[in-house]
């Protein structure tokens, strides 16, 4: 780990300077995480979660510009701009919602993040927990149903160094909300804990569409209580490296999790999209749909894994990974995984990799649509299958 620390010394110094005024208990937790880094190896191709990504791109410390975002175009009722230090709320804050800086969380409210698979490969998660200097704690009270109220969380971070962000999203019992996350670019390591109470419902959409050489590494942990329902839709495009990890845990029964991803990579982009769902309780449902398109010399790694514990009967799992290669040099690695340790389970998984279907292209052309537009229509048709919300 020393090599990574040495390479990232500037980032560490930067982050520590920004957290000097934080509560003692939180600084202590960060110090402990920093201490644990020695036990982790630098991400490399020998690791399962990094096998298909160029982790060398993590060493980048160049200034990477972010896209200018027009908040009006986000069509949100409330925008929360996460800055390198603190946040800014644009729009009216409703009384059922509380947003604070992450360091203002009480110690007893802190939710630890623990990777349940490939633990020794989670240096980036550990690094984030050691160095995060920004983020919000967002709480929705119980019995507040506002599915039509759109909260946009916008990452409006500095561009001159790696940025480490950690968020808490806590949705109360029987509450509903829609949250969109928008990444603008830069060099960002972002983590979050999502905690949904009983009967809570969340629709979440994440946009990480980069024109620049942006790098984004994320780890999202989702905890679902009884009857909770989370739908998450990810739109990812470009950047030099995107490495996303979602970990889902069912804490009780009759909850649902659905994740859709559209990953589009071109040039030399590397995108990894990893979803691990742990069915430790009975009667829970998970659905993962990925639609990925690789062009140029890009690489995409899709991995959906479901682990069904002994006794977690009546679990329902669906994994549907489809991929299109648009060039000879592009690569896609697609891996659905099921580890089932009980009998009463309905599980389905599928994965395909191929080119655009020529008979469909011809069909569109035969109606007068030129080849380029026909391809665009087919790609839109392909990615539309992943829309879960």
């Amino acid at each position, binding site marked *: 780990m020393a090599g990574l620390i040495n390479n990232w010394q500037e980032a560490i110094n930067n982050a520590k300077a920004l957290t000097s005024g934080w509560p003692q208990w939180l600084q202590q937790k960060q110090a402990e995480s920093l201490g644990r880094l020695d036990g982790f190896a630098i991400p490399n191709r020998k690791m399962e979660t990094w096998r298909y990504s160029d982790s060398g791109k993590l060493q980048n410390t160049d200034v990477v510009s972010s896209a200018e975002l027009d908040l009006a175009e986000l069509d949100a009722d409330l925008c929360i701009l996460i800055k390198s230090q603190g946040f800014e709320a644009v729009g009216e804050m409703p009384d059922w919602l509380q947003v604070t800086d992450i360091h203002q969380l009480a110690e007893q409210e802190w939710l630890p993040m623990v990777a349940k698979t490939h633990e020794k490969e989670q240096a980036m998660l550990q690094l984030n927990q050691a160095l995060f200097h920004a983020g919000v704690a967002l709480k929705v009270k119980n019995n507040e149903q506002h599915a039509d109220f759109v909260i946009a969380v916008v990452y409006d971070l500095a561009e001159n160094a790696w940025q480490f962000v950690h968020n808490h999203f806590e949705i109360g019992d029987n509450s509903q909300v829609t949250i969109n996350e928008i990444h603008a670019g830069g060099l960002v390591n972002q983590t979050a804990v999502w905690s949904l109470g009983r009967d809570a419902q969340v629709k979440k959409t994440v946009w990480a569409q980069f024109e620049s050489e942006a790098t984004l590494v994320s780890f999202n942990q989702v905890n679902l209580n009884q009857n909770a329902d989370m739908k998450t839709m990810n739109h990812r495009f470009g950047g030099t490296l995107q490495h996303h990890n979602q970990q889902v845990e069912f804490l009780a029964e009759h909850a649902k999790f659905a994740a859709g991803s559209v990953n589009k990579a071109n040039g030399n982009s590397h995108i990894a999209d990893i979803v691990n769902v742990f069915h430790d309780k009975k009667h829970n449902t998970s659905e993962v749909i990925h639609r990925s398109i690789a062009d140029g010399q890009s690489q995409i790694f899709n991995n959906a894994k479901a682990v069904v514990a002994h006794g977690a009967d009546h679990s329902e799992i669906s994994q549907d990974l489809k991929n299109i290669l648009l060039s000879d040099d592009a690569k896609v690695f697609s891996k659905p995984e099921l580890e089932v340790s009980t009998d009463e389970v309905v599980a389905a998984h599928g994965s395909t990799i191929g080119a655009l*279907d*020529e*008979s*469909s292209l*011809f*069909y*569109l*052309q*035969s*109606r*007068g*649509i*030129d*080849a380029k*537009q*026909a391809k665009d*229509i*087919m790609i*839109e*048709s*392909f*990615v*539309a*299958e992943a829309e879960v919300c």
Partner: protein
Amino acid sequence: MLNIKDIFAKAGDKDILKGLNLEVKPGEVHAIMGPNGAGKSTLGNVLAGMPHVEVTAGSVDMQGKDLLALEPEERAAEGVFLAFQYPVEIPGVNNMYFLRTALNAQRKYRGEEEMDSASFLRMVKQKIKDMNMRDDLLKRPVNVGFSGGEKKRNEVFQMGVLEPKLAILDETDSGLDIDALKIVADGVNQLRSPDRSFVIITHYQRLLDYIEPDFVHVLADGKIVRSGDKNLALELEEQGYGWLNQ
């Protein structure tokens, strides 16, 4: 309208069409019948410009243009329409969007003004009513979840909207029950006009009970071996194709 001269074509290494000649004049309906593997569908695919079907000799002239030199979308804009034997499904794209995109692409190619959405909506609503089809078809993704009959009806509906000069129906009757067959045939008959021609590829005479052809041709081993009027179809229904081997 269409003049096919001594056409040879192959798919992969296999020679399919072997010197086929056919002339179709404006307003005429030609039925192409023949045994399995004779090259009937290949003829339709050659005219529409399907990749992987390679024309090795011969020419196809459509109203003074070399059809074989055009891309599939250019052929469509010139007025060629192929009703597919197996229409493909396009998830996520509804029929209305698909058809408007296709129609406006053709109009653009011909130097005509694109049709705005309100005018298009009025036009397709009227068409679907005239053709006795259900208008929920417009909102559904192209052919997704359609039964075999619905797919064929959708092909005929597309033909009605795009108003081609030359319509090629590739076994549009296969898999249709009698009611669906009548709907499809009515749709075709509504589109018959002095300046529109049809090439109807079929195995069975029953479609020709509803769409009366001007000519019936027997295609065997890659070329037309016999031509006649509608009575030839009745003869084939009675005798089959055994005589071809005699």
